[in-house]
């Protein structure tokens, strides 16, 4: 690297560090706003095409038939007052939503929901948390959508109960009449019919009655979260499957320690991560120590909150460069990557920054795993390096196989 190039790299790092808080804030804003508007936009896009087609038909059809006015969108009441599209409803007591087509949705206590869209054919109801009982009037053109947490339930006419618990990441759906099509995490598009009940949570399970296709075996195995299950063996005492130590045991409470740190140290990872996400991730990313951020990042990764986990690891890398925690964050980022190439990049970063670190063996083993399918030639080099240092290591057998 020339001196000139080094100077520009130094400038780049300084600029990047300086604008990091602004980028973090923009990214967090984008996560909420972009997803919602993108979903709306997609629907609008489809709607525009449909509208264009409809207009063409109208022009042609108007030559022969009288144009009928479009049907009005559904109206609805929240309790005893008029409801508005986009308005959040969050009551401590149950509250009914009564729609003008005769459909009704009863929101349970402590449920937070909104009607995000209403057309002549139906509405879209979004549930951020809580429980609902829906009774939807059936017609040939009925089209209702329920967005329950990360799950989507498409309805043409039916009665069902659904709930979403964001803390436990638990989704329940119980069909009383008719059928729906549900989709979301762990759940490819699937028709659910009357008499079936779906229960998806960190411990995947289906409950009762003939759930034919909706069994854990029917779900894609790679979608299964790494959470505990009744059939799994307990984790090894020192190192977990991904090579990173599990949450440390409960430690004495430190003065000024936030409750989320205490929750994580006590092993309640879902609760600790949820507290951070609710109280403001950005503040945590900017203010906490590298150790706390690693604690958060590891926990978020284990409870399948990749965005929070990734943001915390990245904050460690940015705020504490050249520290041992920064190298450790690189390893964590490697574990998070869906792409083998990206994962290798981070494991390689870890090995460069902490060649004798406690996770070096695991990092090289992980690199080898991904190279076997993507880069067979490089895999041989990695295998040799691995066997030279750790001939009895957990990836030794794989390394020997790579050299055959």
């Amino acid at each position, binding site marked *: 690297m020339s001196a*000139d190039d*080094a*100077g*520009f*790299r*130094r*400038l*780049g790092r*300084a*600029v*990047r560090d*300086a*604008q990091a*808080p*602004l*980028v*973090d804030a*923009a*990214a967090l804003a*984008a*996560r*909420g*706003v*972009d*997803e919602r*508007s*993108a*979903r709306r*936009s*997609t629907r609008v*896009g489809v709607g525009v095409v449909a509208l264009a087609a409809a207009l063409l038909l109208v022009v042609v059809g108007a030559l022969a038939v009288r144009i009928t006015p479009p049907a009005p969108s559904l109206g609805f009441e929240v309790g005893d007052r008029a409801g508005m599209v986009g308005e959040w409803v969050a009551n401590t007591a149950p509250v009914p939503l009564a729609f003008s087509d005769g459909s009704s949705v009863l929101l349970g206590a402590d449920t937070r929901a909104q009607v995000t869209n209403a057309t002549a054919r139906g509405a879209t109801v979004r549930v951020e948390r809580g429980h609902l009982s829906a009774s939807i009037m059936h017609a040939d053109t009925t089209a209702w959508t329920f*967005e329950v*947490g*990360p799950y*989507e339930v498409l309805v043409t006419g039916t009665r069902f109960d659904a709930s979403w618990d964001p803390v436990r*990441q638990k989704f329940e759906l119980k069909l009383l009449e008719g059928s729906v099509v549900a*989709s979301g*995490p*762990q759940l490819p598009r699937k028709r659910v019919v009357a008499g079936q009940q779906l229960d998806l949570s960190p411990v995947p399970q289906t409950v009762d009655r003939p759930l034919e296709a909706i069994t854990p075996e029917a779900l894609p195995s*790679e*979608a*299964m*979260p790494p959470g505990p299950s009744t059939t799994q063996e307990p984790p090894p005492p020192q190192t977990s499957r991904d090579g990173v130590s599990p949450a440390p045991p409960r430690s004495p409470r430190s003065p000024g320690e936030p409750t989320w740190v205490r929750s994580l140290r006590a092993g309640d990872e879902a609760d600790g991560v949820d507290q951070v996400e609710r109280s403001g991730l950005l503040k945590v990313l*900017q203010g906490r120590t590298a150790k706390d951020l690693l604690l958060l990042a590891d926990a978020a990764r284990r409870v399948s*909150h*990749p*965005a929070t*986990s*990734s*943001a915390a690891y990245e904050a460690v890398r940015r705020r504490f460069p050249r520290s041992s925690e920064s190298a450790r964050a690189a390893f964590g980022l490697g574990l998070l*990557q*869906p*792409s*083998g190439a*990206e*994962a290798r990049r981070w494991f390689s970063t870890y090995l460069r920054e902490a060649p004798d670190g406690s996770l070096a063996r695991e990092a090289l083993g992980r690199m080898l*795993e*991904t190279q076997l*399918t*993507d880069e067979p030639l490089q895999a041989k080099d990695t295998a040799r390096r691995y066997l030279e240092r750790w001939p009895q290591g957990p990836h030794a057998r794989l390394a020997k196989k790579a050299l055959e």
Partner: protein
Amino acid sequence: MGQVVPLRGSDGARTWAQRLSEGQPAARAWFVQQFSHHVASLVYSTLGSRTDHDDLVQQVFLELLGSLSTVRDGERLKGWVSQVTVNTCRTLLRRERRGRWLRLFSSSEEAPEAWADDRLDARQVALLKATYSVLEGLDADERIAFSLHYLEELSIDETATAMGLSTATVKRRLSAAREHFREAAQSVPLLMEVLEAADER
């Protein structure tokens, strides 16, 4: 926001590519979460601070989400995201440059106090203003190549992929960008101080 399970290895990447191309809501949520920081950072580095920054990020995501059905290769997902983001920024830079020339004044939407922020100290604000002021004077491709390589720390190969150029062309753009940047930075002591400081590493 939908929570999805992070998958590992190339099989995982292919699975996500499949899910994205099918338009699964969970995959879309994962996609936005996964790349929001990358897109926001690319837009910042390429264009500087602007009042319409969030709108631009939004616009990029709309384009990305609208094209998800074409996703086939999860391994190249990040490169594709970078490419779409860079194209959007490049189109904007070129349009604004044409408009500026025609109107003989800047149409940049940089906010008057664009970099003023409680989280930044005075030196950081000065550094950001000076850097982006110099970058403003570079040709669009030089500016983007410089931003991706030095601010975003993308390799030459990654920069080439994001810009849809050959590595040789990217090297030429970078060389020109360095030369032009250094020329303009001569009159800015803060920039020269950083460029010529002894390397800490």
